[in-house]
């Protein structure tokens, strides 16, 4: 098979699960005949019909709530947010209804909410958001965030098969930018397991999503220019977080840089720093440092967006500083 893009891998995963299990169905805005704003569901309407590929009104709370109701009854809905930015309109439904359903009432709610996230694409403040932090804080939701084509496929399949509600975050900057050969055999990425994206000895970078690639570029540059051996851990799942993998790399290199695209204050990096501090304090030879977006709404002009978001050069500089510490 020719190499597939991140988007094609996601599509293939969705397609295979719909073929495999007729309880799986899709709902969202313009996902039917049109195939979705980014064409993720292209061809699904023709193959699976309008009963399993439902074009909805513009009503995110209804989309998520209806998915939850159908999931209680044993179906396996996959809801698309046209842009993940609009999941904010379903914040109440997700955090109060969906996330608490099992704990409150023993309700099973096997559903997936997915949508295009992130910046580096000149989308401006409302088409570039990273929403993980708002839901990361809510017990009851799982959150996965693939960085590779393989995991885009492996995680959507695992998310659909999972019996808990899963937020599947896909990065639109990666959609068509990365390609990978995938085996013809079934690809399943276990939820809750981080991936060692690059081995190293001197310093660890813990990251996820699009910044995995910034970290890998930086690691390469540091290897060439500074002879630094940098390890890169791709979390892949944010909830439940793979503490073991994080502590393992910390104990190995004793220096950690946490990198994410989201803004800093209240971002996921803070939680990771706190956990390392609690679980591996003695192993630290330097402070846990963060490379993240600046704390502003994401502006649209290329010069501004590039300034606000973390870049490879930022990772390089921060890593150099930490390596010297």
């Amino acid at each position: 098979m020719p190499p597939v893009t991140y988007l094609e891998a996601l599509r293939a995963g969705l397609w295979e699960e719909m073929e495999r299990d007729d309880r799986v169905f899709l709902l969202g805005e313009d996902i039917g005949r049109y195939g979705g704003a980014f064409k993720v569901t292209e061809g699904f309407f023709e193959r699976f019909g309008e009963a399993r590929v439902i074009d909805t009104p513009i009503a995110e709370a209804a989309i998520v709530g209806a998915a939850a109701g159908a999931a209680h009854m044993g179906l396996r809905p996959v809801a698309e947010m046209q842009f993940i930015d609009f999941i904010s309109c379903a914040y109440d439904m997700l955090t109060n209804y969906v996330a608490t359903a099992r704990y409150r009432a023993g309700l099973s709610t096997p559903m997936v909410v997915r949508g295009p996230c992130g910046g580096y694409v000149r989308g401006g403040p409302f088409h570039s958001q990273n929403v993980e932090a708002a839901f990361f804080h809510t017990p009851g939701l799982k959150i996965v965030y693939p960085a590779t084509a393989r995991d885009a496929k492996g995680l959507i399949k695992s998310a659909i098969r999972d019996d808990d509600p899963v937020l599947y975050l896909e990065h639109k900057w990666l959609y068509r930018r990365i390609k990978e050969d995938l085996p013809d055999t079934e690809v399943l990425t276990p939820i809750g397991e981080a991936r060692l994206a690059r081995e190293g000895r001197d310093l660890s970078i813990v990251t996820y999503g699009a910044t995995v690639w910034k970290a890998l570029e930086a690691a390469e540059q540091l290897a060439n220019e500074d002879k630094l051996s940098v390890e890169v851990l791709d979390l892949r799942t944010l909830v439940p977080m793979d503490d073991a993998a994080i502590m393992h790399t910390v104990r190995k290199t004793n220096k950690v840089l946490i990198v994410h695209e989201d803004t800093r204050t209240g971002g996921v990096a803070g939680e990771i720093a706190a956990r390392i501090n609690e679980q591996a304090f003695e192993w630290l030879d330097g402070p846990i440092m963060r490379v993240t977006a600046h704390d502003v709404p994401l502006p649209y002009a290329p010069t501004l967006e590039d300034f606000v978001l973390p870049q490879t050069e930022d990772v390089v500089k921060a890593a150099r500083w930490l390596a010297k510490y």
Partner: protein
Amino acid sequence: MTPRTAPAAAAVAPPAPAPIPADLTRERLLEMYRYLRLTRALEERLVALYRQSKVIGGLFRSLGQEGESVASAYALERGRQRDFLSPLIRNLGSMLVMGAQPIEILRQYMAKAKSPTGGRDLNVHFGDLELGYLGQISHLGDMIPVMAGIALSFKMRREPRVALVYIGDGGMSTGTFHEGINFAAVQRVPLVVIGEYNYWAYSTPPERQFAVPRLADRVRGYGIPVESVDGNDVLVVYEATRRAVEAARAGQGVHFLEVETYRRKGHAEHDDQRYVPAEVLERWARDRDPIDRYVAQLTERGWARLPELAEIDAQVRQEIDAAVDACVNEPLPEPDSALPGVYLDPPVTPRHWYRSL
């Protein structure tokens, strides 16, 4: 000549009872009566327990609204995997009709370990997917999209099942109500929405909540059949709900039924209702109490005699006494039973480190 006695005998014979409406039978009429009485008596007992501070948290009454709750739920096909309902805080009667047990309600209100939610959620916030009822969450409006999804599953699987959900005159102002009922209407799912016009949303009257006279007017924009009925006439509510339910079952999509009733107690027991004119409360209690009116119908139409009803009342009291005795001294949940079940996997939330020091 022989004396004619027959006529005299005929004269003392009781008048023939009026025909029983719809698909009801005398047994079912009495069963509905039983649920009405059970609802009111159970709430009265809860008030006593509340005053003894055995109830933990607030207590919500449906006094005066028992009729619409019981009759609307009674119009559903009940039993395992049949019709489905989601009640609000004042639909205790609906839950009892669907099979919720008084002892479950009592345990919930007293946060007992054996309560359906194991003490995790309060009052009537619990359900039973098998018996067909789903507990609400507090956020008003949210159950509309969820029940739309449940109705959607019936449609997708071509099951002849109907979902019924309640919404208040206040709850209809929420965005989730609008999104959910519109979604359901467009998808033509088998959903019946009961709008409860009970004159109050906490302390807020209808005219500060919406700018049309009736709830039926509020939903004109969704392209669904709408009906308004006297919510305190049990038989009227039963028949209207039955029509809506069967139409929905027949594939005619969402139906909205407005029931006019009155919230005769405060929002919750703590609320002194100072904002409600006393005479209005008296009038509704005197002239429009749903149970009194139902009793009058049953007896005047020859469907039941007062002694039979008194007999039912006595059984209900006994049932409640037994339930209270059985659970009032039960223990609260074990503290660490708070940890399991946020996820199916991982099954248990870790206990914080300092709790094991």
